[in-house]
């Protein structure tokens, strides 16, 4: 046994997609466990926690993001088919959607315009740069869709994805106290609102904390919001002369 052999092994491993793929899965499992041990608190979401763990790991072993992504892209690739699969919960709830179509659509469009306008307005007011603005704009939409939109309107897809994730965890923290403040008790309304403002995080939170009805409505509004934002956002940014 020579020490040099270990060195070479590390050189081999760190250039191999295997390592980053495995590390990503391990970090996620660890994060889920830690979150569960802390009682599922929205303050430390498994996704934000695993991202922090992985960034720490990459900095520690001095691996750059491009090398990491060579392996992690196999997980990343599945976002495309997963977005397509959002059609399944939408189809499952088509009856409820048809019955409530008008209120849901009005609330959804209002919510999207509010989200985009308040985001762009506040970010411009505080002097954010153009790329930041365009990456912030789709932040309340589920990541796979948001990344596509950010790319289309001149933002940075991976920055947009990160901001979407942060928005999701913030939405889970802010949602319940806001519902209490506005005396919103209907689980369908709560779920729909969570899905609109906090996409997949809101949906997971609704299923876990607010019940099945809230979860279903949340999944529905996540799909609907993603779809409508993909159509509306390019129009809104062009209207504001930012596109």
């Amino acid at each position, binding site marked *: 046994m020579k020490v040099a052999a270990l060195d070479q092994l590390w050189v081999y491993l760190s250039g191999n997609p295997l390592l980053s793929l495995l590390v990503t*899965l391990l970090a996620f499992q660890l994060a889920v466990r830690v979150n569960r041990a802390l009682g599922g608190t929205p303050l430390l979401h498994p996704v*934000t926690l*695993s*991202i922090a763990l*992985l*960034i720490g790991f*990459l*900095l520690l072993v001095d691996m750059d*993001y491009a090398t990491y*992504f060579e392996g*992690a892209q196999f*997980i*990343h690739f*599945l*976002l495309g*088919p*997963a*977005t*397509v*699969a*959002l059609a*399944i919960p*939408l189809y499952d709830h088509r009856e409820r959607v048809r019955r*409530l179509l008008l*209120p849901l659509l*009005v*609330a959804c469009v209002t919510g999207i315009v*509010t*989200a985009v306008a308040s985001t762009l307005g506040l*970010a411009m007011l*505080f*002097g*954010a*740069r153009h790329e*930041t603005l365009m990456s*912030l704009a789709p932040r309340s939409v*589920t990541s796979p*869709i948001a990344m*596509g939109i950010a790319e*289309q*309107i001149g933002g*940075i897809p991976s*920055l947009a*994805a*990160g901001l*979407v*994730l942060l928005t999701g965890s*913030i939405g889970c923290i*802010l949602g319940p106290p*806001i*519902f209490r403040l*506005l005396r919103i008790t209907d689980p369908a309304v709560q779920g*729909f*609102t969570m899905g609109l403002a*906090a996409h*997949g995080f809101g949906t997971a939170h609704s299923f876990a904390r607010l019940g099945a009805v809230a979860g279903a409505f949340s999944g529905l509004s996540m*799909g609907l919001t993603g779809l409508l934002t*993909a*159509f509306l956002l*390019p129009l809104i940014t062009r209207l504001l002369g930012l596109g």
Partner: protein
Amino acid sequence: MPLIMGMSMLLACQMLGELVARGLGVSIPGPVIGMVILLASLMVYGKVPSSLRSTGEGLLRYLTLLFVPAGVGLMVHGALIGADFWPIVITLFAATAVTLAVTGWVLARLQGRRARRSS
């Protein structure tokens, strides 16, 4: 085979979506168009094939894991985030709060009016 069949259907819809997006030069992500194509096909077909359901729901169950690789990309944007740190933090918190409040309020009012009318 069901996993392969379900995956083929999802990928086929995504590919069609990408082709439509590129072909027409529209600014909508390909997978989103793929989602619309799948939804329309399900409406026509009348039910969700079990192979598609098991694959699709499996993917959606682990949706949060799929975000992780892109999220790690935040490390590349350290400089940009540092430069725009406060605008980003304030915007994320304030805009999310406003969005939650407005959406919840609007939907609660619309639903309440509908319920009163029908009762």
